[in-house]
């Protein structure tokens, strides 16, 4: 297991995908913080800054690192079969499960490091905006990282399934991109529209009720979009009506406790995907 880990870790850190995607993401952070500062950063409360940070990182890292995770997984096995490196590796005295386990661990660590980069840059941003670096902030940022990691791991595992099903790594890459587009853009918008339509049935629905309806729909109809599930949880980190100067901050532990179903979906589906991906790898022809 350690052997597969070492090899994959070194390999992953050298892929262009990783650095290109992380580079774009971090570059996008800079203008966002500048804009906030220029449109009245002085009025932002500490709670507002923290609430913003969590929403912002969930959205940005979830999208960019989510694509990265899916692409990483989708080419993990087939590209190695194409190159032949997998046949060299598996001709050595290693068990298949140890090899794929090591690979998975390496992917998880790389994704965790990517998330850490994202949150560190984000945290530096809010500190620059004037929020103090408190213990609560650090705790919540770390908890957010763990949640997002769970989502990313699920996407890698989904990628593994693609990688064992689609022989050509370039087709798999294409399929993964289409899937990312569907998961992160199309489906959330479709469900958003459905929520809106459902709310029309009840003309005197208040803001809070609408948020509840949105959560319900996301949980039900977007259970396979891990970043949306994280979004439901982080949605409860703070209560806001959109004004960063008027925010009550509840914290991550509260948000997680309030949404056990979404956490359960995240964990459960991850295990299912991993099970399918590993099972297929253990029984597949490596040619």
């Amino acid at each position, binding site marked *: 297991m350690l*052997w597969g880990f070492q090899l994959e870790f070194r*390999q992953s850190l*050298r892929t262009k995908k990783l650095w290109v995607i992380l580079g774009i993401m971090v570059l996008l952070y800079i203008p966002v913080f500048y804009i906030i500062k220029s449109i009245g950063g002085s009025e932002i409360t500490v709670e507002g800054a923290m609430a913003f940070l969590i929403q912002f990182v969930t959205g940005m890292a979830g999208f960019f690192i989510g694509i990265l995770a899916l692409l990483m997984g989708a080419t993990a096995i087939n590209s190695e079969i194409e190159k*032949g490196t997998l046949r*060299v590796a598996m001709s050595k005295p*290693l068990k298949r499960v140890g090899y794929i386990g090591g690979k998975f661990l390496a992917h998880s660590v790389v994704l965790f490091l990517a998330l850490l980069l994202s949150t560190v840059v984000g945290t530096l941003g809010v500190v620059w905006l004037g929020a103090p670096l408190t213990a609560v902030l650090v705790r919540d940022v770390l908890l957010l990282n763990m949640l997002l990691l769970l989502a990313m791991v699920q996407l890698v595992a989904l990628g593994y399934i693609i990688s064992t099903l689609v022989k050509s790594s370039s087709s798999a890459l294409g399929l993964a991109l289409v899937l990312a587009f569907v998961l992160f853009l199309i489906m959330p918008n479709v469900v958003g529209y459905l929520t809106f339509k459902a709310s029309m049935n009840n003309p005197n629905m208040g803001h809070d009720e609408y948020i509840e309806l949105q959560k319900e729909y996301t949980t039900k109809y977007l259970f396979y979009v891990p970043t949306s599930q994280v979004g439901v949880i982080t949605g409860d980190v703070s209560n806001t009506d959109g004004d960063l100067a008027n925010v009550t901050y509840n914290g991550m532990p509260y948000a997680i406790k309030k949404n056990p179903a979404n956490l359960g979906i995240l964990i459960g589906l991850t295990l299912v995907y991993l099970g399918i991906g590993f099972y297929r790898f253990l029984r597949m022809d490596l040619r």
Partner: protein
Amino acid sequence: MLKVENLVKVYKDVRALDGLNLDVKQGQVYGFLGPNGAGKSTTILSLLGLIFPQEGSISLFGEEVFRDGKYDEGKLVKAKARIGYMPEHATLWDFLTPVQTLDIIADAFKIPKAEKEKRIGELLDLVGLKEVRNRKVGKFSKGMRQRLLLAQALINDPELLILDEPMTGLDPKGIAEFKDIIREQKKAGKTVFFSSHILAHVEEVCDTVGVIVKGKLRLEDSIENIKREFLRKAGYTIIIETNRPVDFSGVEWSVTPLGENKYRVLAEGDVREEIHDFVANQGAKILTMQVKEPSLEEIFLKMVK
């Protein structure tokens, strides 16, 4: 040492192995010959547990590692520790140098550090990659990659070497060096099993040759006998030049004159002596005699029929 019984492998619609039997003894250098698509790579991949055949059994070092669609992974891993394998059309990790590649491969065998370093140096010397040992494999030529693939197969000083078309991509010097390495292995008492579709590659080094056609072992014998058998099947073509005209009427061979005092003789078997006597009886002398061997492809084609 290596025993395969009734192995069947079906890829979606292709029956690549159709009840293959193999028995390779300790210390043998076994040439596994067959035309493209015969099932050589399929056999080799099965030996290493890299693909899943549907039926039959495989034993390595006297332990049954595969039976009826299932590998015994514990036994397989133990066997793999004693095997060196060189795949066909493979590359190694582009971002590593030969030294790093061999280092990580050695780690899979848990070779202790001091021994590992010594072995890496020796092997890079052996395959002639010493000068480029710190260059990234991504920048290697095909022949250089092939040499590194051989080196990685030897890292654990394997008792059994399994090589899939090891000589493709090598220049004549590389082929000669490769054959030397195989001879060294034989001298050290190792067993070598390697595939090829070129007769010249298995000549000189193999003591036994097996011929696989359409997923079945058609022939297994010493290289001399195989060649004789090949020639018998494909027929002999002998071209002679004599010092004066010879009258070939009444012989059972088919003879075509090719020019002045030059003839082509087609016969079922090796009739060189008979030709010699026939010509001498007419008081003529043979100046040159050439035996044209049929190409392996021609022979394979006949065997399939």
